[in-house]
């Protein structure tokens, strides 16, 4: 209780207060919505939201679908499942910074492995992290590789709890692979899929480490500036804790709204 009070609840309350205060000469004064106005007027504000939403959408396309497909494939193997599970989970065990730096080397336009491969295949080389149109996608790919192991194992556990009779019944009805997935697998794992979707949206909206290490945070022409990176800039590089708290509050409100909508939707579906 005490740990939560001091390391979680108190900072949350303090952040809420800071969002409406300005601290100068050691004195905090109430400034109403000034911090929010400052944040909204920041030229990087809308760009950061656009980039964060783009990351979230791309991370869902890759980070949501890929682990599910991987889990489906592993589930089909009758031998060596333990080995495959370990293989998929290995990247999660690497320290995130090490994984990101690994990708930084892979993406290097000069000596990076990916461009070496492209050269070998006579394909045009790419500026993975240095092309404003490609940089966010490159960040998402690295992030997906780093994080998909955990999600894949959860999906796999959900898949293995589906009774085999359902598939047998579907087969008797003449269902092929895709119809079995659509009519049996997805409905049976709907709950876990929804939960993972919610958790992934909440996590991906707070993306920081990957762009910070891969592109220095902002990226080419600001193309990987995310909301949390902007919060970091306000707090630690511009010494403006009020603005950082205000932007954090906006993010909190958005995520809380999303969570509430999710809860309402799932209740409506249950009814």
């Amino acid at each position, binding site marked *: 209780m005490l740990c939560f009070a001091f390391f979680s609840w108190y900072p949350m309350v303090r952040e809420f207060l800071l969002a409406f205060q300005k601290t100068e000469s050691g004195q905090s004064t109430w400034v109403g919505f000034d911090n929010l106005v*400052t944040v909204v007027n920041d030229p990087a504000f809308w760009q950061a939201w656009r980039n964060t939403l783009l990351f979230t959408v791309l991370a869902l396309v890759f980070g949501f679908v890929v682990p599910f497909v991987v889990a489906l494939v592993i589930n089909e193997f009758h031998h060596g499942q333990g080995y495959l599970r370990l293989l998929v989970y290995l990247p999660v065990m690497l320290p995130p910074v090490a994984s990101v730096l690994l990708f930084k080397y892979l993406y290097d336009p000069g000596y990076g492995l990916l461009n070496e491969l492209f050269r070998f295949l006579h394909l045009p080389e790419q500026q993975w992290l240095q092309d404003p149109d490609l940089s966010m996608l490159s960040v998402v790919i690295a992030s997906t590789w780093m994080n998909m192991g955990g999600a894949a194992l959860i999906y796999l556990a959900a898949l293995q709890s589906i009774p085999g009779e359902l598939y047998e019944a579907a087969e008797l009805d003449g269902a092929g692979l895709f119809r079995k997935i659509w009519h049996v697998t997805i409905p049976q794992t709907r709950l876990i899929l929804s939960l993972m979707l919610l958790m992934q949206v909440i996590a991906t909206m707070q993306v920081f480490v990957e762009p910070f290490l891969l592109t220095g945070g902002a990226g080419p022409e600001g193309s990987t500036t995310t909301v949390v990176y902007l919060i970091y800039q306000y707090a630690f590089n511009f010494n403006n804790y009020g603005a950082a708290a205000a932007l954090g509050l906006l993010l909190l409100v958005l995520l809380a709204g999303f969570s509430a909508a999710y809860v309402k939707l799932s209740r409506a579906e249950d009814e």
Partner: protein
Amino acid sequence: MRSARFRRTRRASAVTLVSALTLTALAACGTSSSSNNGSGGSEGGGSSDPTAPLDPKTKVTLTIDCMPPAAKAAELKEWKEDVAEFNKTYPNVTIEGRSTPGQCLEPPRFTAMLKAKSQPDVFYTYFTDLPQVLSENGAADITAYVNDKSVPLLKDIDPNVLGSLKQDGKLYGLPTSNYTMGLLVNRKLFKDAGLNPDAPPRTWDEVRTAAKKIAGLGNGVAGFGEYSAGNTGGWHFTAQMYSIGGEVVDASGKKAAFNNELGKQVAKNLHAMRWEDDSMGKTQLLQWGDLQKQIATDKLGMFLAAPDDIAYMVQQLGAKYENFGMGPIPGEKNTLAGGNNYMIKQGISGDKIKAAVAWLNFKNLTVGKGQFDWARTKQDALPVGVPQPNFWLNDSKAKDDAARVANATMPVENFKSFMDNPVAGKAEPPKAQEVYKVLDNVMSGLLTNKDADIDKLLATAEAQVNQVLATQ
């Protein structure tokens, strides 16, 4: 059942609340005690006259940050020797050094420290930190404590350097080191490319020509390198603007001043070097530390740097001093100047401030002593000969320069071009980090986009910087 659960919840809430209040009270006591007594040294209450010397009967304990960490054994040995020698004159002053592994001042940690008011009695800052420190009421006004008795060589310190530590005529710190930016060159690559390493390029046209020749060596070698991430791209764009006589923010401090012919000149030159000449390497979005690694491994011919970058490259990256040289910043109209210093925590006693000034004078501001004891530095196998710090004037400069040359551990003639052609230093713009954040986009746009629209990049950045400056 419901009522029992309600009672349990209420009791738990009460316990939490009481515990929270108790801990808050304890924390408050801790803060108060720390701000009154600093690190717990007993104070006897010497003269309240700030110009009077520290009363030898008054016992003072000072906490000071940036003591060298154990990994820097030679520097730590020198620190301890300096404390022992200082204590011969001031046996009543106890110095408690605090060290940090790695970089002594990291902006995020520094900001948090100021917010929490947990800085030591004597704390390390960069020149550009003054507004931030003052906005947090972090530093004491030491004007009355600093005079020709407490700091005998005060008159020989470059007034521009002292000016960086003043606001409204009040002095808030004493310098440790200062720098002006120049052009750092890799002598080996210069020779390999048929260039004269003793005469680094003096104009941006010469830089472009030399970069092309060096990049022509192949094997992934770049001729000239620049930053474009982590706000360091904006920092160097500013340096380049200064070098050709431009500004980034106008004199009023309210308007951007780079969307003009000079700004376009900087941008076009960089874009042409990157994309027409292919002399800046393929890997971009670089920030502080990246170019040093490239030049230390003979993969980069030159970049804009402060002289102490060489010490970092030798001590941390295993490079050799003789492989590097330095010239003035190309263009030579102005150069970005900066440095670091110590400030004294606001709220500590007058005796502590006197003791702190005495220590800083001994350690950092006495020719032949402390950091300027070059004979000892050489003996300890540390570098001597880098033209930094460079804040002495008059007799002190002559004596210090002679001592550096006499004890040099590196070929000081490699810095001759830099030393013989001093360029006027210019401070960073207001709201530097926020302006640099915007200008990072200009740099990354130029260096990562072959089809970059220079006019658009500068116009967008101008509008954004104006927006940043309008919210001061």
